[in-house]
């Protein structure tokens, strides 16, 4: 049997995105076809899959069996199913391993844009609001290889009112510009979406606190928070962050929505609407073409309710690799665990977890190097 063509695969993925529905059997069938395509066209992935015992002649029987590359593999090799000269856009992965960066290359942004807009519509814009986007994330015109900046650029273009603002310059926040943006929105009677990394939100709240200021975002406004505190020296508990943001920005906690994504993926998770009344724990839900598998240290899938490392199977990653392993910790939840909403509860990376013994650890070594 010959592998499906990129066009055929894209059409099937786009159909799933358009329908926002993909049953288990259809997911597995599409995943197997994508796997076949990718091992035929991504040589490093094919070699990795072979080492795990899979090939075109032996396809994974379950979604959980699909060989998942570690996210750091993007720093080791070009994981793309197309020639380099066909790369349309690439996103730069963070350099958390050995200081090296990596690239997630896309031959086209069609899938990426369709996937992100479809999820954003349902998770942030379920009320159909047309918002103004005030962004505390990288401006895609300045940092075209930031996946987060690209994402919000697309959202602002497709769903915004045309007056979006960008207030992050490198690591510096333009607080005055942001406040002017809020004032303009209020004057225009337009609700806003503040798209921000957790760290930038802390910076904004600190700046407001220094000024003794609180502001009231226009009614119907919301905040999309993402990114955590990876690589940052200061970490703020999410519950404290949301409580402060709610007070200082004048939005209910339930209007603060966490997005969880990775540069190496093409799709995103969001806080399930039903879990937004509280801050912790919130349940992350994936769109139908993205699935989370929680695995143990040997890569074996764990049942719901058991904490392990999160693996993503993202069918929108047609041009690279659909299965990615992370070091993020989480647990799947469903009715069997007493959860009202099935999904993924994220626990981060156990930052600051107690180490046993007196051995040096990588974190300390890096800190000593400055």
């Amino acid at each position, binding site marked *: 049997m010959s592998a499906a063509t990129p066009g055929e695969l894209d059409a099937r993925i786009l159909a799933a995105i358009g329908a926002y529905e993909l049953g288990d059997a259809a997911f597995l069938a599409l995943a197997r076809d994508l796997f076949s395509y990718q091992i035929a066209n991504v040589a490093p992935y094919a070699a990795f899959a072979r080492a795990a015992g899979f090939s075109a002649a032996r396809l994974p029987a379950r979604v959980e069996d699909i060989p998942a590359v570690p996210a750091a593999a993007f720093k080791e090799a070009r994981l793309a199913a197309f020639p380099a000269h066909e790369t349309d856009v690439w996103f730069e992965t963070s350099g958390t391993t050995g200081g090296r960066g990596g690239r997630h290359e896309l031959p086209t942004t069609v899938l990426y844009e369709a996937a992100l807009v479809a999820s954003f519509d349902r998770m942030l814009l379920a009320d159909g609001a047309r918002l103004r986007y005030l962004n505390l994330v990288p401006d895609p015109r300045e940092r075209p290889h930031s996946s987060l900046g690209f994402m919000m650029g697309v959202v602002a273009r497709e769903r915004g009112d045309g007056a979006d603002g960008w207030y992050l310059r490198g690591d510096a926040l333009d607080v005055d510009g942001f406040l002017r943006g809020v004032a303009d929105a209020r004057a225009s009677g337009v609700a806003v979406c503040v798209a921000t990394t957790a760290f930038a939100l802390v910076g904004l709240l600190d700046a407001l606190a220094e000024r003794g200021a609180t502001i009231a975002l226009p009614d119907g406004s919301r905040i999309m928070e993402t990114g955590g505190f990876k690589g940052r020296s200061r970490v703020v508990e999410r519950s404290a962050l949301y409580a402060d943001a709610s007070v200082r920005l004048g939005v209910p906690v339930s209007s603060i929505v966490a997005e969880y994504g990775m540069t190496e993926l093409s799709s995103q998770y969001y806080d399930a609407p039903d879990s937004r009344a509280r801050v912790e724990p919130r349940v992350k839900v994936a769109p139908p073409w993205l699935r989370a598998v929680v695995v143990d240290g040997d890569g074996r899938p764990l049942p719901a309710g058991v904490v392990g490392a999160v693996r993503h199977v993202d069918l929108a990653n047609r041009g690279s690799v659909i299965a990615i392993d992370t070091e993020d910790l989480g647990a799947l939840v469903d009715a069997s665990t007493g959860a009202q909403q099935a999904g993924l509860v994220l626990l981060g990376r156990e930052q600051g*977890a*107690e180490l*046993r013994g007196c051995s040096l650890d*990588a974190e300390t070594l890096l800190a000593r190097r400055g």
Partner: protein
Amino acid sequence: MRAPLLTRCSRAVADASEPGALRAIPATRIIGFIADAAQRWCDADFAPRVRATAAIEARLGYTTPVVDYALDRLFSGITRDALEAATSSELGSVAALDGVVERRGAPAAWARGVDRVVVVSSDTTVGVAIAPAVFALCAKCDVVVKDRSDALVAAFFSSLAQEHPAFAHAAQARAWHGGDDPDEDELLARADTVVAFGRDETLRTIRARCGVDARFIPFGHRASIGRLTRAEAEQLDDALAERIARDALLYDGEGCLSLHALFVHSDAARHGAASAGDETLAHVARVLAGACERVAVEFPGGSRAPGRAAQVGAYRSLATFRAAGGRGGVLRGGDATLVVDPPRDEPPPFLPRVLPLIAVPSDDAVAAYAAEQRLPVQALGVVAPDARAAALAERIGAVRVAPFGAMQDPPVAGHHGGAPRIAHFVRWIDRE
């Protein structure tokens, strides 16, 4: 539950009211009491040890054979001979602890123990605080040790008190609350010598709470490495491999004396050949994987937090990805992972039961790696602790050269961390 402030303050006053309980006892007798107590702890059926073993297992998640091994090595090393040897080598004689002694070519002097010693171990290493506490007691100091929840130190101090009641006053183990506890502030502020084990930020915090004149003896986190010469690598047999595996696997590789990376001299590395074709390295990896499997039966791995398991899984997966691309290899031996020829621009992973094997053309490359990665090396494991090994240890900043199989079994009379054992606990009084 914490005691009310008034009670805790009263206790501190009471403790302070009976200082120097060991002063009147000759040092040789103190050493004898300590050695006798340690001897009782060498018996695996000794009731306090049985209780401590269970508590340590519950706290750390290590398996019974590992905890038993740790306690065996800890207490079997605390002998009269070892304590006297360390004391004599550093102070000239044990008698110097009792009063002024003549010294050839130097003023007669008394190695008078300081009054108050505090030992703080923020680490979870089994019994790490006991060795400095023992030497401070030999110096007749009053010692307060921050104890862990397993109360190992408290239990050993109880055994000392059974040997002689003066230890009940001189040797105290306390639960430690950390943070802004005024008791702790007072203890640290009044201590003459503070010994602290822990991560960098912990040591900085403790140091800041010490008196300006206090001696602060920090033991930060460090790493240990091993080296096989080409001939040793080619002749690697099961016995030697098991000794190496034991150094790597004991305490899940989480001690500063655990083997964190093994450097292997090879001709292929000298000629820049790809690791996949390095027969010496492949032989070492193969034999060592078998040894790890056997050692893992003797010393099963402990429980792992999900985060650590995820880190191990990610590192192994990345190594597998590299190997699939022809760069290095990954072997499993029991619950251990051997990563062959990882990238040279990365430090060792410092993950439980994960050992990188790195082919190098010579000791120069070992030294270059340690320098480039800025590795604070504690011990160098070798087959033969000869002059060549000592020279390498000097170059990489190691403070100990040990034969494989003994890396995690340091002699009590040795210089842990490159520091004296007892000299920090005395104030010399010269009589000219």
